[in-house]
Structures are given as structure tokens and as C-alpha cells.
């Protein structure tokens, strides 16, 4: 997780895709298969049943179909950022090929690595990042230290102890009044 050797990256969105319009990042997909061997059966079924619908739903992706004799079937997806992804569809049924194609269609083309954060924002703070001067009382800037009157906890109202002591007519030990009176 925190190993420097394991590739990781922050999630990124190229060209602010989705901010204005969404552009499908899958540029073209090539289905390589064999017309005869049994390992390509699912891929052949997919081409017969579902491929045309896929092309109609995704007119922005060019689909190439490439029969190759006696080779195991695979998909090659090319993305707008220039990267390619290969998926072997050997012995896969047609619906599994469907699912893999859907996975490839919804990807951005970026390499799959550990994400350091699940989100990305350019403005993590709208009110401004905290800094030590942010909520400081401005009068402190002109105060010369040491300033004994500032030491000790600030109380906004009388505590129960204070009220009792007041009634008894006794000054609290360790209070500011007692310190100044000692001096």
C-alpha cells in the first residue's frame, strides 16, 4: 500500500473530460478471432449477436474484425491517449466478451495502478487553507511579551466554583487577582 516500489498514481482526468461534454476515450477496438477453432466460439457468437448493436450504440468507436487462422482470440482496445489494452477472449462465452468490451469502453486508457486518492480536485479549499495567523486576535500583533494578563485560561462566564467562593468571600488561590495582590 505504501511501498515506493509498487506503481501508484493520483487519479487523473485528461482534457477535463465530462466538464463540458463527455468524449468516449475508446478510439478503436479490434476483435481478432479464428473462424474455425473452438476457443473462438464465444467471440464468433458475440460478433454474430451483439457486435452490431455495440457499434450502433457507440458510433465514436471504430470496430475492426480481423479473422486470423489457428490463433486464440483476443481484443485490442486503442485509446485516445495512445495506449493499447489487450484482452484474451480464449474460451470465453459471448456474454463474457460483452462484459470485457463494456469494461474497455468505459476506461480512460490510463494504466491501472494503485490510486493514492479516490478523488481529484483543483480547489480542495474554498474558504482558504488554515494558517497560524488566520483567526488570531489582531491585537496580539502589537502586544509586547511577556504579558502576564494574557496567561491563564480565559473564562467567559463565572464557574460554579467562582460563585461559591464569592459567596464565602474568599478569593480563589492561583487566580490573577491573587497573583497581582501578592506582587
Amino acid at each position: 500500500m505504501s511501498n515506493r516500489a509498487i506503481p501508484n498514481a493520483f487519479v487523473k482526468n485528461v482534457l477535463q473530460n465530462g466538464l463540458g461534454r463527455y468524449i468516449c476515450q475508446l478510439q478503436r477496438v479490434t476483435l481478432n478471432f479464428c473462424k474455425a477453432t473452438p476457443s473462438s466460439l464465444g467471440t464468433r457468437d458475440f460478433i454474430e449477436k451483439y457486435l452490431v448493436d455495440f457499434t450502433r450504440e457507440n458510433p465514436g468507436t471504430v470496430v475492426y474484425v480481423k479473422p486470423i487462422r489457428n490463433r486464440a482470440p483476443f481484443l485490442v482496445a486503442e485509446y485516445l491517449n495512445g495506449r493499447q489494452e489487450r484482452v484474451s477472449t480464449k474460451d470465453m462465452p459471448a456474454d463474457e466478451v460483452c462484459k470485457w468490451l463494456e469494461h474497455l469502453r468505459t476506461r480512460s486508457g490510463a494504466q491501472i495502478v494503485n490510486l493514492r486518492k479516490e478523488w481529484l480536485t483543483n480547489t480542495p479549499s474554498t474558504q482558504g487553507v488554515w494558517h497560524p495567523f488566520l483567526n488570531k486576535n489582531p491585537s496580539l500583533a502589537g502586544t509586547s511579551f511577556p504579558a502576564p494578563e494574557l496567561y491563564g485560561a480565559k473564562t467567559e462566564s463565572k464557574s460554579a466554583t467562582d460563585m461559591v467562593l464569592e459567596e464565602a468571600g474568599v478569593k480563589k488561590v492561583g487566580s490573577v487577582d491573587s497573583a497581582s495582590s501578592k506582587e
Partner: protein
Amino acid sequence: MRAYLKELYNRRLRVGPEKLRHRSEFMNWNYNAEIYAFGKRLGEEFSNDSLQAAFTHRSYIEAEEARRADLGIDVASAPLGLTDNSELTQKGEETASRYIKAYLRSSYPTMFEEAIVAIHDHLMSDDTLSHIASHIGIGDLMLCSDFPPEESTLSKNFLAVVGALETDKGVKRAESLVRDLVLAQLVGKELMELWSVTNPMGLLMAVLDSQGRGPPEPRLQWQAGQRTIMAVYQVGIYSDKQLIGQSAGERVTIAEDMAAQDALQRMMGIGSGHMPLTFRTEADKMELRYDPKNISAEELMQTYELRQKENSVS
């Protein structure tokens, strides 16, 4: 066996890397399908003719004609029949330039004209446009003589695509494309970095004077760690006893400069905490005025200097 494999490996290294080839050299390539998909990818309906023209560069036509002449084919009797994209590029550049300025002026009504021009120049630079072009798939579709494609060719091609969209679907759709692809690149950018102000304090004085407000008075607000290398000074600029800008810096002079820039930023309506740019349906409803320019910083400074001279004379 190991020695044999090692020798094969070293021979492959000696030969060098695989030659860089254009995508069209591979078997699975259908130019018409690729062009059609390009238009659909952007969500627009182009006409085939204008898209074809947008991707054809002058250099390609010249190279083709030279090649045919070399082969002995008479170019005059068998013309190529290709139109190049110079007209569409110009059209696209004008539309994009006009729209970017109008959009910025409308989004930032108090921003100085110089800043608007600086941001516009950044957006219309070869760097930005070629980056956009290569990420929407123009690189593979271009017909030009240079390979790998140069930045200038890519950016011209992008503008030609904008021009083609304007020809087919009108100005509004072309502007929408420019907004979604080009203006979206401003999100997350520091706009003050794109425009360099040589004398922010002087400009601030001129601005406040023109608005009839009190002159800017910088005041040291906080300081810490003076005799260390991590000294920090926070300076605030006040006008008529109201805080208009503040910033921290390593030295008092730096902090004052940055505070003046902060004040200008706040006046222009940029910086963190300000409204983001509008996109999508909200942006379609924006009523943009193309001609009236924003206030010019230069003019303000000149007016201020003249007034100062008059005051000192009188």
C-alpha cells in the same frame, strides 16, 4: 541455450527500436470509418466533405503532387481533387478567438483587457491546442507531410475542425465545441500566473484613484521568525481603512508585492473562493457581447500618471 538466447537479445538491441509508423500503415485501418467516428466521438454531425478538407494540409497536397510528378503522371490532367484546410483553419481561428475573448469578458467583467488577452493567448497557443488535438484523435487522421506530427500542424488542424463545424452546423455549435475543449483547460489554472504584472502596486494605485477610493496603504499585519531562514511577514493593503488584499511573504517587500497582486485578483473576481466558469446548458444561455472590451490597465496607469502630473504642476 542461454548463450544463444543472449546473443539473439543483444542482436535485437543492436538493430534498434521498432520504427515509428503512422497508424494507417497497419492492416486494420479504414479512413472513412475513422473520420466518421471522429465526428461522432465529439457528439457532432459533420458533413464528410468539410471534415475531409479539415484534415488535409497544404503540405500533403504538395507532397502528393510532387510524388505524382515524379512518377510521370500529369498533374493537370488528373487533378487530386483535394481541398486544403487553410480556409477552414482561418475561419476556426477567428471564431475561437472571438468566442474565447467574449466568454472571458462575460465571466470576468472586472478583469483587465491585458489579462484577458494573456489568457486568450495562452489558450490559443500551439502548446495548448496541440495537446487538445492529440487527445481527441486528430493525430492519426491528419494528412500532412510531417511525421511525427508537429505541434503547429495539430493546432491548425484543430482550428480547421472548429471551422468545419461552423460551416456545417453554425457558429453556436462551433462555440460550444471551443468551450468544452479549450476553455475547459482553464479549470484549476492560476489565472494570475498567465498574466504578468510588472508593477502591481502602481496599477492598484491607478485603479483605486479611478474609482475615487482612497490610496492603497500597506500595513504589516503579522511577522514571525525574523532572525531565521523561515521568516514570514504578512502584509495587508488597506484603502479607506478597508482591507482589499493581503498576503504573506519571505520578506516585507515580497509580501507587499504579493498583497497588491491579491488585491488585484480580488478586484478581477479570480482566485480561490470565486465562482467557477459556466459550462453546459448554463453556458448556452449566456448572452455574450463580442465587441465591447474590458477596462485596460495601461490606459488606467496613463490616466493616473497624467493626473498626478497635473496635480504636481498645479
